[in-house]
């Protein structure tokens, strides 16, 4: 029996996992999932895209409202419809001391555009004919055709020319922080870049910790193990967060758009009146108040939020009106067989993911539809299976959200008849020649006023046809310790403002890593 004790020293020997203390003052941020890669030429995941601006500078960045603002680009000009000229800031250095030049910009984008490198971002540069280096600090992009949304494609972080491909340690950047440690699935540690061209960050480090379990994230916040949580606190826990001393809960209007999508080829929801009826039957406002605890705003547009320049709010509205919903269903040829009795007009399959909140909302929607005589079979699937079904058109109704939409050109990707999956995200197989024409025209028009008019028209048609049932725009929710000042919520959830935050009074809860 005593030999059993032999395991103990072995255990103690093993129990020497990573630990350490970070010097100076910093902030610990909880993340709700892993990051596959930080290399900006490959990173397509939301988490990597949000951390990216801290490590990498780019020609343009998105500001807190989701607008494009110059970053490495000191000045830029659109010389004609297809030519863009950028002049870079001089003296900006990568974290390894090399200066950022036009050649690095050219190399970064050429790398992405080279099919041999397999970058998932290559599609955004299909319109680029060539990239020319004019001098050490000037670079010119020449497009094959007009593509007015092209500047949005220039928010990719710039890396040094010749940076290796697919390595564990991503290439260096020139952003406010330098990557010090990255343990996939565990943590990302960034330390301040003293030579950052806009001035050294006021914090010495930022420590991102992957805390996939919601309860653990909340308890870490209560214990003081983390200082910031952004958009990863469920609605039900906000009350709990508010009760933690020294912690502030901030909410701001966000651009995440929640909707119901329909299969237009389906014999039931293919009817416009059925979709309109469903839209009228759901009381989004009540769901926001009771299920989402007020952490959303009822959506009155289609996809774009009121923060977007191309947003159109004057579209067909579908206020909660069960009586109207019943009228629409009758008009569509689906009369209620027994009035208020148990028999349904028809039954639909509603697909959603296994996410707890999504399932809860699906059950609420089921209740609303039952009141107008529509049965709903809620089927929740593991994410990969669910998403595969949606792309294949194997659904009647589903619910999903669009996150971080800033470029209205997304309408082409969502509703043009050439965008059926796998070529785009027109998952409902919506087909409307007028919308196709307007979308094509909006891509070619360089006049912003004209584009706005075209997008307004598109949004009105989509709303009138109830292609989506708009539910709500989810608020951005941040829980942060009060000692940290200057944090700004970005519409797309980026952590960019961590470079500007500071600790009031020089006190911080703890600066040690676990």
């Amino acid at each position, binding site marked *: 029996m005593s030999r059993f004790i032999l395991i103990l020293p072995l255990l103690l020997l093993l129990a020497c996992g990573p630990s350490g203390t970070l010097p100076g003052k910093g902030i610990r941020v909880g993340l709700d999932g892993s990051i596959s890669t930080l290399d900006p030429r490959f990173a*397509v995941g939301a988490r990597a895209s949000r951390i990216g601006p801290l490590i990498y500078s780019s020609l343009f960045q998105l500001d807190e409202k989701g607008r494009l603002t110059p970053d490495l680009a000191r000045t830029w000009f659109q010389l004609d419809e297809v030519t863009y000229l950028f002049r870079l800031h001089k003296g900006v250095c990568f974290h390894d001391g090399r200066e950022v030049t036009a050649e690095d910009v050219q190399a970064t984008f050429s790398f992405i555009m080279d*099919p041999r490198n397999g970058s998932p971002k290559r599609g955004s540069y299909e319109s680029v004919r060539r990239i020319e280096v004019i001098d050490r600090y000037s670079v010119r992009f020449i497009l094959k055709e007009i593509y007015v949304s092209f500047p949005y494609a220039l928010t990719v972080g710039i890396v040094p020319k010749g940076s290796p491909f697919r390595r564990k340690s991503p290439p260096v950047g020139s952003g406010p922080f330098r990557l010090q440690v990255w343990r996939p*699935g565990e943590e990302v540690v960034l330390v301040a870049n003293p030579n950052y061209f806009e001035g050294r960050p006021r914090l010495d480090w930022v420590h991102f910790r992957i805390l996939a379990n919601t309860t653990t994230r909340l308890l870490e916040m209560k214990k003081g193990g983390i200082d910031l949580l952004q958009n990863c606190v469920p609605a039900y826990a906000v009350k709990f967060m508010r009760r933690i001393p020294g912690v502030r809960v901030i909410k701001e209007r966000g651009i995440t758009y929640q909707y119901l999508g329909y299969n237009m080829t389906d014999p039931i929801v293919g009817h416009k009146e059925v979709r309109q009826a469903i839209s009228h039957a759901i009381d989004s406002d009540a769901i926001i108040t009771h299920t989402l605890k007020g952490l959303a705003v009822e959506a009155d547009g289609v996809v774009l939020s009121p923060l977007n320049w191309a947003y159109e709010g004057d579209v067909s509205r579908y206020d909660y009106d069960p009586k109207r919903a019943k009228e629409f269903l009758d008009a569509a040829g689906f009369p209620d067989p027994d009035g208020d009795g148990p028999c349904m007009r028809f039954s639909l399959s509603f697909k959603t993911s296994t996410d707890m909140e999504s399932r809860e909302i699906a059950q609420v929607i089921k209740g609303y539809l039952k009141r107008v005589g529509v049965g709903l079979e809620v089927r929740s699937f593991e994410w990969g299976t669910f998403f595969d079904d949606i792309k294949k058109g194997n659904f009647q109704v589903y619910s999903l959200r669009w996150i971080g939409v800033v470029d209205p050109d997304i309408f082409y990707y969502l509703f043009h008849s050439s965008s059926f999956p796998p070529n785009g995200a027109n998952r409902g197989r919506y087909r409307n020649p007028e919308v196709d024409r307007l979308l094509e025209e909006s891509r070619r028009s360089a006049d912003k006023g004209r584009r706005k008019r075209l997008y307004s028209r598109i949004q009105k048609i989509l709303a009138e046809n109830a292609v989506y049932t708009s539910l709500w725009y989810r608020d951005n929710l941040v829980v942060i310790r009060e000692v940290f000042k200057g944090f700004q919520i970005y519409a797309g959830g980026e952590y960019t403002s961590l470079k500007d935050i500071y600790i009031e009074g020089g006190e911080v809860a703890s600066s040690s890593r676990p």
Partner: protein
Amino acid sequence: MRGFFLRRSAILIPTVMGAITLVFFFIHMIPGDPVEVMLGETAQQADKETLREELGLNLPLHIQYGRFIKGVVQGDLGDSYFYRRPVTRVIAERVPATIELALAAFLVAGIIAIPLGIVSALREGTVLDNASVLFSLLGVSMPNFWLGPLLIILFSIELGWFPVSGRGGVGSLVLPAITLGTALAAILSRMTRSSLLERLGEDYLNVARAKGLSEWKVIMKHALRNALIPVITVMGLQFGALLSGAIITENVFSWPGIGTLLINAIEARDYPLVQGCVLFISLSYVLVNLLTDILYGWVDPRIRFRG
């Protein structure tokens, strides 16, 4: 002994191959496209096709399987789609944390279960025995996703003794080990109790007593040693499960082990990583079982291995 090893190794290989073969075909059957997970929905169709070709996913399934088996034989499990690094390295980084947690949970279970089982058997029908039954019922009834946060609230938040989550130092190991080890302790304590009760009525114990041995020696050396054989069998099987099945505990404590890696790999349709994890798990199972058989001989010298 040599013959025993050879015979067991001959069984080991087809067992592992069977497990990875089943998983290979199952993971390819479930819906979801790894290329789309890697490139994102917005990627060009041509790029998706190029990548599919590069990864060999355009080939017939039996050819993919042949390549996979060839890789396994050569020790090359390919690159993880998600992490874009060799699978062997990704797994190797997680193995220490997994073994650490499994051993700690095993130790917790052993420390609680065996003394509890002994006391319970020796004091059959008393308050102590009833308390042990209560512990066992609680232990197997409490799910880890509930027990873990409960322990965090008590020992981390209220008492401040241990960190809430993460891996670093012995302190961070305590709560996950208790969470994972409690259910096992409950099972083992009942097994120890019933097995020991059976032995306590045997004649050879009376012989031992007649020889003048103290009661302590009679119990520990003669009764317990025999009683532990079925307990060790269960421990062996459970240790294999601990190596692979700590998914919930790993998730609650943000513990970077194989369990969470496997779940993430399945979600990302990261075929090579799923296969690598399953290979590790099935190998762990069969090796731990082999070790268990060897332990029989250590506990009960009457058991000898024949070739």
